[in-house]
């Protein structure tokens, strides 16, 4: 953000927890200002009365405090020098280095003309079968992890980011604990990826409302690299629930009528504005957004995950599977809506049918489990589905799996043949003829290609294997 301020006033008339109001003329809507040395933005103009939202809060601001208007909306200087740098919510370096040079652009700029977009079409391989097999990601997609706060989502997201082969990774941290911030830094550093990373960080130690600037900052930088430099940019936003909490703080303080779960009525539009920045551009650049929406008690009907789900192109739902004692990508509640653009096209032709068949059989297993829990006898088929489900979770759904898609498909076929008859899997004859494996004795357990590090060791695995 530029510090070239112009108009100066010292006549604040009203101060609330979050805002100051004063008489001023020629002020434009959404203009950036400094109030008593704190960043603020114009949120309301009533004739010659201007109301400013002070990001840090108004503690200690006196009525005669100096108010300096900048004459423009919040902005960021974009250029190649952003690469490898760490910034706060205002775009000011926090890594002790110089302010990078570049072209100043307003953040939160206009949207892409839909007719100028391209259809996303490039498969992003992550090695995680719960993603690649069941919920394949595509460049230009926007998708959140839905996870309870005790799930290792930051670890998984870092892992996905490093494997995704993006030209730039832009981290937007909102209410990140200092530990998690340092975790990201270390993981990226250890992977030798720091030069590809740009971070905009608001930690739990910073004022909550400042978070509201993070996504726009991160995405403005992303647009520069994707549009000007034609790069493949991956934007990580964590944790969007904390972003929404900041929205509700602001709307509450401004006396707006809350809608569900004390969120502002505009929550859908507010989130859409951010997520819709994900795009495949005509010249090859792209912005892919992977975010985290933390849940409370797995409740996806809460206003935040609910509105998010209506905007994003699917969601990746993390759950601890007690059968195998590992975190899995839940095949029922997860979804990638762009998967059909790449599966069976950039992956093997049987992909879609194998994926659906496995999930269907897994659903049968869950029904069998309910039956069992209700104290009923299981049929022989029920028993087989349960056995299948366990192996399916262990070999494919667990987040610590790291294999190629081809291997995922082969694994699924081996499991089908081991537990089922051909007519029980409901797959087109054509694929059965090609891929059905008649010898289920060929045990998969012994297959050394499969890679199951425990999640706790992900750090190590980055050092050993993940460095590209």
């Amino acid at each position, binding site marked *: 953000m530029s510090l070239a301020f112009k108009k100066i006033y010292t006549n604040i008339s009203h101060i609330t927890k979050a805002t100051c109001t004063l008489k001023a003329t020629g002020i434009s809507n959404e203009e950036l200002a400094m109030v008593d040395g704190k960043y603020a933005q114009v949120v309301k103009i009533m004739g010659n009365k201007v109301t400013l939202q002070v990001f840090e809060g108004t503690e200690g601001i006196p009525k005669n405090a100096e108010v300096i208007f900048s004459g423009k909306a919040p902005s960021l200087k974009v250029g190649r020098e952003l690469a490898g740098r760490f910034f706060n919510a205002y775009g000011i370096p926090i890594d002790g280095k110089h302010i990078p040079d570049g072209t100043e652009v307003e953040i939160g700029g206009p949207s892409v003309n839909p007719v100028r977009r391209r259809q996303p079409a490039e498969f992003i391989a992550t090695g995680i079968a719960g993603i690649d097999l069941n919920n394949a990601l595509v460049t230009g997609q926007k998708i959140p992890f839905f996870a309870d706060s005790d799930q290792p989502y930051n670890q998984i997201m870092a892992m996905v980011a490093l494997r995704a082969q993006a030209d730039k990774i832009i981290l937007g941290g909102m209410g990140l604990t200092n530990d998690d911030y340092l975790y990201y830094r270390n993981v990226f550093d250890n992977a030798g990826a720091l030069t590809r990373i740009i971070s905009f960080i608001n930690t739990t130690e910073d004022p909550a409302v400042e978070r509201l600037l993070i996504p726009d900052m991160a995405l403005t930088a992303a647009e520069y690299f994707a549009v000007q430099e034609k790069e493949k940019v991956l934007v990580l936003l964590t944790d969007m629930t904390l972003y929404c909490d900041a929205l509700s703080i602001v709307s509450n303080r401004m006396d707006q009528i809350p809608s569900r779960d004390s969120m502002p009525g*505009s929550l859908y*539009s507010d989130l859409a504005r951010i997520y819709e920045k994900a795009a495949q551009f005509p010249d090859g650049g792209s912005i892919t957004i992977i975010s985290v929406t933390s849940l409370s008690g797995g409740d996806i009907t809460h206003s935040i995950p609910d509105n998010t789900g209506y905007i994003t192109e699917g969601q990746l739902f993390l759950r601890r599977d007690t059968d195998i004692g590992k975190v899995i990508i839940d095949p029922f509640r997860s979804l990638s809506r762009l998967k059909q653009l790449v599966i069976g096209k950039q992956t093997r032709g049987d992909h879609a049918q194998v994926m659906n068949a496995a999930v269907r059989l897994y659903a049968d297993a869950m029904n069998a489990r309910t039956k069992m829990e209700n104290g009923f006898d299981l049929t022989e088929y029920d028993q087989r589905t349960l056995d299948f489900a366990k192996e399916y979770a262990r070999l494919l759904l667990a987040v610590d799996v790291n294999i190629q898609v081809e291997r995922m498909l082969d694994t699924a076929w081996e499991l089908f043949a081991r537990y089922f008859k051909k007519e029980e899997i409901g797959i087109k004859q054509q694929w059965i003829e090609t891929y059905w494996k008649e010898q289920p004795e060929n045990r998969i357990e012994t297959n050394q290609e499969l890679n199951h590090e425990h999640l706790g060791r992900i750090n190590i695995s980055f050092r050993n294997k993940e460095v590209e």
Partner: protein
Amino acid sequence: MEKGKVKNIISNLVTVETDYSVAQNEICFIRTGQSDLMGGVIKVAGNHAFVQVYESTRGMKAGDEVNFQGHMLETTLGPGLLSKKFDGLQNDLNKMQNLFLQRGEYTDALEHESEWEFSPLAETGQSIQAGDWLGEVPEKNISHKIMVPFKLEGMLIVKSIVDKGLYKITDTVAVLQDFQGTEHIVSMIQKWPVTIPVKIHEEKPRPFQLLHTGIRLIDTMNPLAEGGTGFIPGPFGSGKTVLQHAIAKQAQADIILFAACGERANEIVEIFTEFPKLEDPNTGGLLMDKTIIIANTSNMPVASREASVYTAMTMAEYYRTMGLKVLLLADSTSRWAQALREMSNRLEELPGTDAFPMDLSAIISNFYARAGFVKLHNGKQGSITFLGTVSPAGGNLKEPVTEATKKVARCYYALSQQRADSKRYPAIDPVDSYSKYLEYLEVQRTLGAQLGDTWVDTVIEAKDILLKGRETYEQINILGDDSVPLEYHEKYWKSELIDFVILQQDAFDAIDSYTSLERQRYMLYAVIDVCHTEFNFQLFDEIAPYFKKIIDMFKQMNYIEFQSNAFNQYWKVLEELINQKKAKEHEPGI
């Protein structure tokens, strides 16, 4: 004076001070920096006009100049709309050259330079009224009627009309004289305010025939009538958009209007990418040639979301008055309701349930009422079939938009999370969903004529089997597999057979995605025959494997061309399978 000055700015609600006698819903432009931002008056109080601005108001200042336009938000109507991509305010998106949308850039909906081959249909001296056909021009594959402007009142006389030839849309094609003797010059374009229904028809009879969509759960089980209304509520990810896209691709309509209202840009890009490559399965023509897309995606200005559905409806009414079968799809009407909510909150109106405006229900019902089948003054018929999606918060159907829509829409296609989770697509709940049209006698009559006298009864029987299947499934779950009579298992599996073969349909398979009516008829009767069969099972655990085999065969058939060799082959195998297990009591000699 038609000018005013900006006084207050709260987000996109701007209060304008003016002495001019502004009209409710009047359009104005606000000069902000180098751009003129469009807005619409939504409330007037004394010399204050409350304007909702259709753009971001960043940079706007108190004192900025406002120019009122003297008319409401209007849609431009004329030849050349087909296959175009508009935003919610009917700007032609293709004419905007930049990668990013520029604030304050407005583009013409039609081409002023193109020439159209006009053939007169009316004669000099003829008495004529609004909506009557003066002539026609070929537009893509349809005959686009040039009509008496909808705004002209009463009976008029054709003073003159041009000969057949090439004309530009602004050229005069006719001169009409009204009952007061005033002459009106008519060209090929006219304008109409989007929020006012076009009511130009002799009568609006009840819908009486099916609008074929190729989707079995709709056509067979819950038919949508031509000129009818329906809605698709469902939690996120349950398949609303995929279903609407499938309907858009396959429905037997002359014109498809797709209003993407506050939804994802990538979904609209999918239409842009796919439709030009696809053929209309009914006519073989290019799909894009009969399609108009109104894209007001979720990141585009909120205020024009509302406008987008009205803009689409107005174009639909225009084409209906040409005697065409129009299908209007809106995804999602909830986003439009949310836009209304945002504005109503900013106006500090008394909120209704979930902070939606009090008159939400009336707004929705007035909008749905614009659909319908009409008989025109010239005896021809036209129709608008309207199908909207609803995105209920938290997937809970007890919310204002779903409830208000349920009161007016006649088809209810409720998508179920559970079915979507188990990949039973399309996830339309077969028990909760309904089509009121199935109860219309006139619909039953046309269905009978098309598909046979027993058709409607068979459909009702299939629904019955599904319902019983669900009940027995619950019983089995409560009592346990071996504590219920064998027939429970059989009943349950017969309902699964209908579910897997008729209800479930792969929207991404070239063959399965579209089922002709003839094929739907064949499959329903084939499946019902199996349901009528009495089987000879000894143990409950032979039932599931047996039905799975049958289901598998039928499903393979669904993936194969109708009545091809392979299709008939499967059918033979199926017949054998069924005969093996048939209860033998009718066999002679025993």
